[in-house]
């Protein structure tokens, strides 16, 4: 009886969701160690502004992975509540970025000094992205359209809208203050997006800790009818997750344009929606909704970026990159499927209690 109740610790470990992204992280690291240890080199060098900054593949993972991680936060909530994903986050990020450029450039083609306070530009871009999120949310929660179909509208139209906001001009803003959010704070060698992501994580942690968002979202995602009979408003909750995702998208859009200083409507944040969805999946969250694990999603986002950077380091051609990524992703997602995890943990359980039950009998 007792041996039955006590689970093998290794088997129990495999049931933990966060093990999947950790395992993927370790695998990639081992691969890189075997391939070329210079992958891990981090150097301190001066950037164009003359400040000493850290550079290297790992820094690049942290830097770019932070954008993905911020998106993964919102994507996790949408997935959990609605049982579907928002594929328009890339397009919406461009809209958000375009709004920022429009406000800061004051309608000019280029600006050495920003025409409006940066914080105002940020707040307006948040509103714009949240409005896009609200549109998606309304389609999904009120009109009950499947999330992927509903967000297909914004996915298709988003980049055109973004171009229209700035009359398709490719604006350049060279104000060093504007570049801070996407590059470095003078005197600090760690990329700013890392700090922005940290702030987002802390806020998310606080929201999940000090409100019932987690419980409500999961309840609605698992059983909408029951949730309603327990006093929840599923429509409002689903809608809310899309608006929150909009906020995450705004932050990412802002970082993107700050990093580049210019905007290219058809290239910025391209395919980022797929990476964000993969991050959620790699975190072991069911894409059909229900229970979620936020830290696992966030870690998943960094692992996806780690993979991308590894492939770049292997000098895989940019055009061939998605194909390589797909292969790795298939392996990761299959490994993280509950069915495979169950059988893996079952394998471990069989291996060691074999002695225990032998002793008991």
């Amino acid at each position, binding site marked *: 009886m007792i041996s039955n109740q006590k689970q093998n610790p290794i088997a129990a470990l495999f049931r933990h969701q966060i093990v999947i992204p950790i395992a993927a992280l370790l695998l990639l690291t081992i691969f890189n160690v075997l391939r070329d240890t210079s992958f891990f080199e981090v150097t301190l060098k001066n950037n164009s502004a003359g400040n000493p900054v850290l550079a290297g593949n790992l820094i690049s993972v942290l830097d770019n992975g932070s954008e993905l991680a911020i998106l993964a936060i919102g994507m996790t909530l949408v997935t959990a509540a609605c049982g579907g994903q928002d594929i328009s986050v890339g397009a919406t990020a461009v809209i958000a970025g375009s709004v920022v450029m429009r406000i800061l450039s004051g309608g000019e083609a280029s600006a050495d000094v920003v025409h409006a306070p940066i914080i105002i530009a940020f707040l307006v871009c948040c509103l714009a992205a949240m409005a896009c999120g609200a549109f998606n949310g309304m389609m999904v929660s009120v009109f009950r359209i499947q999330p992927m179909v509903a967000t297909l509208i914004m996915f298709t139209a988003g980049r055109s809208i973004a171009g229209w906001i700035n009359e398709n001009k490719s604006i350049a803003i060279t104000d060093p203050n504007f570049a801070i959010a996407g590059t470095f704070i003078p005197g600090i060698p760690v990329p700013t997006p890392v700090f922005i992501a940290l702030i987002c994580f802390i806020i998310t942690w606080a929201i999940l800790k000090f*409100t*019932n968002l987690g*419980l*409500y979202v*999961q*309840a609605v995602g698992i059983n909408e009818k029951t949730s*309603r009979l*327990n*006093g*929840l408003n599923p429509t409002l909750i689903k809608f809310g997750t899309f608006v929150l995702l909009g906020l995450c998208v705004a932050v990412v859009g802002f970082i993107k344009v700050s990093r580049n200083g210019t905007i290219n409507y058809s290239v910025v944040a391209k395919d980022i929606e797929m990476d964000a969805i993969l991050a959620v999946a790699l975190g072991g969250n069911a894409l059909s909704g229900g229970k979620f694990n936020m830290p696992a999603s966030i870690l998943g986002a960094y692992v996806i970026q780690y993979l991308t950077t590894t492939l770049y380091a292997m000098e895989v051609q940019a055009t061939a990159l998605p194909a390589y990524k797909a292969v790795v992703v298939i392996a990761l997602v299959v490994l993280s499927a509950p069915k495979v995890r169950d059988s893996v943990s079952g394998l471990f359980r069989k291996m060691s209690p074999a002695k225990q039950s032998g002793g008991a009998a």
Partner: protein
Amino acid sequence: MSDQTVLQLSGIYKSFPGVKALQNVAFRLQKGEIHALMGENGAGKSTLIKVLTGVYSKDAGTISIEGKTVQIHSPQEAQNAGISTVYQEISLCPNLSVAENIYLGRGEGKFVSWRQMNKKAGELLDSLGIHVRPTQQLASCSIAVQQMVAIARAVDMDCRVLILDEPTSSLDESEVQKLFKLMTDLKKRGVGIIFVTHFLDQVYAVCDKITVLRDGKLVGEYKIEELPRVQLVSKMLGKELNDMEDIKDEVQTFDAKKAEPVYEAFGLASSEGIEPFDFVIRRGEVNGFTGLLGSGRSESVRAIFGADKATSREIRVEGKKVSIRKPIDAMQLGIAYLPEDRKRDGIIGDLSVRENIILALQVKTGFFRPFSRAKQVKFAEEYIQKLNIKTASVNTPIKSLSGGNQQKVILGRWLLTHPKYLILDEPTRGIDVGTKVEIQKLVLQLASEGMSVTFISSETDEMLRTCSRLLVMRDRKQVGELTGDQLTQSCIMNTIAGGGAK
């Protein structure tokens, strides 16, 4: 009976993490026999059925059909071996038509003749006396009809062993009679039927033999005439039982004049099409809605709770005029509602017992005031103990609990909100005798502490035992109110039928 064993199970073991669900269980079914499988919740009935139908794989033991040992690894293999099942919870596809559900997964060729299929389904349904169009979408049928369709599907598959897992829990009396007739027909054709139910009357009405399980172990196999009811119940519970007789004495006479009304409605109606009715319940009163299935019992209480879109001239709670438009309004006013369909409306399957217990209170307290983990555990443990819920831990997902224990969790969820007025819609459906008595006793105890309770049950004797006033529904209309001396089986039947007491 000669030795015509169609199905033999021996030495079956099955365990789940933390639970030994079956230990050395044996079972024997003969041709043309209706064999009741009895036991409390968690006794292992459902697990045994699932092992037999390939849903779970057994840890040890043998299954043989007509003398040949078979390995059953999937429901499909069970079907091919001639074992058909109708489950307790309807497991058909609600979005398909009735005919599609009957023939789903059974096509021989690649092509389907829809007309032929619908025609065949129509003939089958007619022969079973089920009144439903083959092309109707299953979800639009009542639960009872869905259940009947599931049975029709099983019957149509040329089965040697038919398992009926709680088929009658959502059927009304006339439908049950139809089913019994069907079972007897099949029995004559030599089909062995395993019948799992909690209704003792039904066991004694149709069965030939009874096998009793308790705590995952076999208690014994008995011929029906050799096992009186009292002994059956005591074998299931593992103790002598006189609770059933006791409970009647505990009913306190409720004096309607002294108590003030807790909830009053005037001209209450809902989008589900019940006729406007007036309703009042007083402090400490237990009343009930009775009537045939589909008569509007559930719709009435759903209207009270705001679960369906409801309209009314006036609603008062404790004398104050209020408006109840959605469930949260009712909850804030101290009304709680345990829904009829546990799986669809009651549980949040993937969430833990703890989260399921705190949910309603948590929603009531508000978005920005979550309970600490320690407090959640305290609440959950309080009700696990109070209601004697059998669960491995507070963090076990509720879906892995047995039906009765799930029901107790939902009950605990609402008791935790400390309601003034508790509505229980079929709280004892599909759960065992012991738990039924526990719930009935609890209702009476709560009422004596001042809570008002509306109790709905398909079993009239259960309502007679608990309620001091019964509202009789017919065709979505209130047709009578029974109190005092009128609370008898015959009086209820008369009122439902349309004659007698008004």
